[in-house]
């Protein structure tokens, strides 16, 4: 049996997740941890749940794979009420990644990655082939197969956690502050790789963080939570430029203007007039964001950069005034 037969989601889109007036009250608590949440996550979207510690992000996330049951309300995946499904069967269909990796310390890396395929009874050869594929996907050498989690760095362990969650190519992933314990550089790299994986596989991702910068880097949509309620749901640009209230404004916080720049790509702010051939200027591709460009200008001390298409052909130039006006325009748009 070819490996692809075990990966029913291959080439398909992600799942739709619907929260229909979902609440959860912990016994003994005086208010709901999650309160009356109505939210639809469209297939294939990368959605970040954002909010301060204790606002109910984890509770909301764990209700999707039934590690926590709602007190009231209904959660549907692709239209089907998850209470109608067997919990273990449901969880095998959902990739789940948590902060401290949750790797099984007594299992080798290959066993950790193969946990779900084993539970599903895949034949040995398919499992072995899949483990190799996944190690390639997350950028770890095949030699790591025989190691134990404790023999890997924190970042490597988190990659293995990601590989385990991706093993059966699930149509959705739940990720609870997966990069929260990593150093800044490793975190950035893993964020980029996660984005690349999402672009390639197109599953629905529900990602929890309390870090606004991480949310902006990753999200197609951000859902801001406070005290168990959805305060705002929109694109990162919406959240940054049009915060729904003071709470969101505070959350978005100080570096707002710079964050706005990081949401605009060089291509759209381009000054297309004039002399494109400008030798000696530093070059960026048109999908680089303005924050990166600004950084580059400050570092190199030049007035302008050349913007190129993905093949390296110059399409225009970009200087501080262009960046400034682009930031202003976007800021007053809404």
């Amino acid at each position, binding site marked *: 049996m070819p490996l692809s037969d075990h990966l029913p989601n291959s080439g398909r889109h992600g799942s739709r997740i619907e929260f229909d007036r979902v609440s959860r009250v912990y016994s003994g608590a005086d208010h709901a941890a999650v309160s009356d949440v109505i939210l639809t996550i469209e297939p294939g979207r990368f959605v970040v749940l954002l909010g301060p510690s204790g606002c109910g992000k984890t509770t909301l996330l764990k209700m999707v*794979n039934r*590690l926590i049951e709602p007190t009231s309300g209904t959660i549907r995946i692709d239209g089907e009420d998850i209470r109608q499904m067997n919990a*273990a*069967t*449901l*969880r*095998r*269909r959902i990739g*789940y990644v*948590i902060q*401290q990796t*949750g*790797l*099984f*310390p*007594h*299992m080798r890396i290959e066993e950790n990655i193969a*946990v*779900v395929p084993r*539970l599903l009874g895949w034949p040995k050869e398919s499992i072995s082939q899949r483990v190799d594929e996944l190690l390639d996907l997350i950028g770890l050498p095949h030699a790591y197969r025989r*190691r*134990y989690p*404790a*023999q890997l760095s924190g970042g490597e362990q988190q990659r293995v956690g990601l590989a*385990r969650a991706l093993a059966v190519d699930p149509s959705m992933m739940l990720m609870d502050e997966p990069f929260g314990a990593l150093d800044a550089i490793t975190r950035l790299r893993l964020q980029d790789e996660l984005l690349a994986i999402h672009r390639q596989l197109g599953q629905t991702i529900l990602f929890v963080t309390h870090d606004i910068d991480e949310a902006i880097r990753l999200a197609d949509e951000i859902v801001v939570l406070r005290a168990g309620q959805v305060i705002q749901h929109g694109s990162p640009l919406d959240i940054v430029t049009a915060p729904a209230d003071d709470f969101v404004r505070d959350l978005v916080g100080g570096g707002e203007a710079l964050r706005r720049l990081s949401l605009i790509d060089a291509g759209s702010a381009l000054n297309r007039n004039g002399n494109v051939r400008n030798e000696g200027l530093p070059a960026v591709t048109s999908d680089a964001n303005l924050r990166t460009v600004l950084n580059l200008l400050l570092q190199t001390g030049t007035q302008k950069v050349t913007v190129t298409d993905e093949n390296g052909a110059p399409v225009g130039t970009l200087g501080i005034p262009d960046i400034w006006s682009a930031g202003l325009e976007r800021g007053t748009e809404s």
Partner: protein
Amino acid sequence: MSFGYLRNNWSRVLDLTIEHIELSALALLVGLLVAIPLTILIVSNTGLRLPLLMGLSAIYTIPSLAFLAFLIPSLGLGRDPAVVVLAAYAQLALVRNFSAGLRGVDAQILEAADGVGMTKTQSFLRVRLPLALPVLIAGLRIATVSTISLATVTAWINAGGLGSLLFDGIARDNPSMILAGTVAIAALALTADLLFRGMEYLTPGARVQRIGRGRTA
């Protein structure tokens, strides 16, 4: 004192050693059959843990000779009452260590086992049990060593084993016989201890701890 008895009667000492092993093994087997359900009970109902362990400690404080004498009216003499007493004494070491081992497994790892879609049985057999195994084997080791040494006393009610050498030696004022019994019991207990320590060392859980301390797998 001399090793004269051991030299001249080594085949009797060997027979008694085998008898001693049989008695201890039987007592441990019965002990396990009781300890395992008790452990499962208090791991799933944590409120019962303290009362049960206190009860088992209370049993442990009963003097062994009194306990044996107490059983003579109902079970008579011989191996049966000895097995009951030894199995009862073993409960404390077994249940305390078994429950500590199972409860000691990181809750986050157990939640990860649920999260990937393991059933309760799969999570127990594939995650909880292997991670608790070093502590479980340690419990078994402690229970075994103490059972081997306690099984000496039960010779007093004709349960056989190496204790006979001690009681006979005292009765006949034969120090060489007492020495032979003592040496054999000590050797047996030490062997059991080493055997279980070896098993502990080989468990995946112990290997993980060695890796954690920076040694290789």
